[in-house]
């Protein structure tokens, strides 16, 4: 591999990592602030993709479809929090695991009933459906670059919100001490509902904007879920910064694992996690 291709592979890894970050950020947010292990996070990713696909049949603009899909996802997220998750705050983590496991089953079946078992694709929107020539044989799809830019911008935005705003302060306070948030006179119920909805929106958004370079099909939420957990745990539960680094690490490990050690490609991601946790048992930024 010459240096040129090495750099392109780095770019591939970073691009994949940025997308992973966007999905995982919602998970780590919910995890860190509310202490909820949300197995249904992948289902929101799936929901975002399917909603976008479905809306595209009527609105004819990817941008508009995504814009419409987000409030729907937020509402679904908020309702689930208000009706089900809220009951379990004082309970053991494992009860939440069980609840959200049940939700996965329901989401998967609902997906099948609403949209069937077929695999779908979404066209890359006009204007972004071209590629930049990098080498004689290889081009890089512009949409992927745009996707990375959106993910990076969202990551930056999230950083600013958490570091600079009152909402961010509550979030940081909530992550360290739930009772203190209550003492500050904040409506914890509302805050948690909002956080859960935001988490759902982040997952749905990832599913939606990745849809044109992904296939949309049954079970897509389950496969992203585990890799997101890996990212979150590597970074340190609840840490957005950690999730960012964890996602990049996993993106690169996956990319180079496939190229350099194809026989151990499936190991690479889990191997990285095992090593990180054996050295830093609470993740990089706990």
């Amino acid at each position: 591999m010459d240096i040129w291709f090495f750099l392109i592979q780095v770019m591939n890894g970073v691009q994949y990592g940025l997308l992973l970050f966007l999905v995982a950020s919602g998970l780590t947010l919910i995890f860190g602030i509310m202490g909820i292990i949300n197995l249904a996070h992948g289902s929101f990713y799936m929901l975002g993709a399917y909603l976008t696909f479905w809306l595209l049949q009527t609105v004819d603009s990817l941008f508009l479809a995504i814009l419409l899909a987000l409030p729907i996802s937020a509402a679904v997220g908020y309702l689930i929090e208000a009706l089900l998750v809220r009951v379990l705050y004082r309970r053991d983590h494992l009860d939440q695991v069980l609840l959200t496991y049940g939700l996965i089953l329901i989401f998967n079946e609902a997906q099948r009933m609403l949209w069937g078992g077929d695999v779908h694709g979404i066209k890359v929107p006009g204007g972004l459906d071209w590629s930049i020539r990098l080498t004689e044989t290889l081009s890089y799809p512009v949409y992927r670059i745009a996707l990375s830019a959106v993910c990076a911008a969202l990551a930056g935005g999230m950083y600013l919100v958490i570091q600079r705003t009152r909402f961010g302060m509550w979030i940081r306070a909530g992550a360290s001490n739930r009772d203190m948030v209550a003492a500050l006179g904040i409506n914890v119920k509302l805050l948690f509902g909002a956080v859960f909805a935001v988490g759902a929106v982040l997952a749905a958004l990832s599913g939606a904007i990745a849809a044109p370079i992904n296939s949309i099909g049954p079970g897509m939420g389950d496969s992203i879920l585990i890799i997101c957990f890996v990212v979150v745990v590597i970074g340190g539960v609840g840490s957005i910064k950690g999730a960012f680094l964890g996602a990049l690490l996993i993106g690169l490990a996956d990319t180079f694992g496939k190229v350099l050690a194809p026989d151990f490609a499936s190991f690479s991601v889990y191997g990285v996690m095992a090593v990180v946790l054996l050295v830093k048992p609470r993740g990089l930024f706990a």
Partner: protein
Amino acid sequence: MTRISRRGALLAGAAVAATGLMPTRFAIGQTAKVRVGLMLPYSGTYAGLGEAITSGLKMAVDARGGKLGGREVEYILLDDESNPGKGPENASKLIAGDHVDFLVGTVHSGVALGMAKVAADTGAMLIIPNAGVGAATGPMCAPNIFRTSFSNWQPAYPMGKVAWDRGMRNVVTISWKYGAGEEQLGGFEEGFTQRGGKIVKRILLPFPNEEFQANLTEIASLRPDGVFAFFAGSGALKFVKDYAAAGLKSIPLMGTGFLTDGVLAGQGEAAEGVLTTLHYADALDTPDNKKFRADFKAFSGKEADVYAVQGYDGGQLLAIGMDAVKGDTTAGSRAALIAAMEVAEIKSPRGAFTLSKAHNPVQDIYLRQVKNGQEIVLGVAHKALADPAKGCKSA
């Protein structure tokens, strides 16, 4: 909770007891229905395939008045979830629990192997309407195991010659790292290297990883004359799109028909020019195929595909066997049933075919190409190709 499920079990028991009053064995009279167990994916990625196979098989039976060998047919459907871990359990459930006379399934090779194992153990009649795993008509072949689809080697092998004839000398092969992927790549590589072609690199990704970017970059750096890929379902959809987006279209992309079948619409322009080989093509210009496609559309409301054909032929094979023994499924006429099925000539929409000693179709493999968003048949890549059935003792 326990109480409810116990009551449920009792209800189920009562229902079973009621049906138990009816004779299920042919020996008691011809009133009993033939029980056909369809163990197919009805959920998950392959749900659409399972439904197409089911419709095809039912259509073949309906064309005979809904009867097999003069007996009404009862279908018992079971969702195998494409979960190989539960394959043997589910197959046993149909055989021991539902007493099916025929077991039909499935799509996923791992599950099909489990079914073949159970069929070998119990002697139950098994018809495989899709899964191409070589072992089923190879080392595990048995008198009671039939296949109406293909072996993984079969559609891939002729592409080796096609690639060579088109002047390719260095080819990269890529697939998922699992049984079907390696068998399909193996078929192509055999056909290609025996003519002198060189496999520059064989890339195997973890199944079912769909992030191809790293490997596409690798392919670009290798600059082969062509790429042979085996992916199916969502992986096929995405691979073809990513391949085009990575600017690799100057390198011809080849594969077996699964690379484009069923996902062509989703792939759009990206699929333009992709070469595939398969034992069927939607666009096959024969009266049989046209009639079949029209009938299937009327029957199920959906466009026919290769899976529907395989299911349909499974139904035809059943009918031929059952006609020969006049609907007698008892052990006494088992040998006659198998003998009739072995020599059957099946008038398939794909073109007539017979079965090999290992009970796998001996069939034509077509060369197809995507042009203007349509799959065009370029011709026959290999006439009456039989799987070598390596390891099968009866072949």
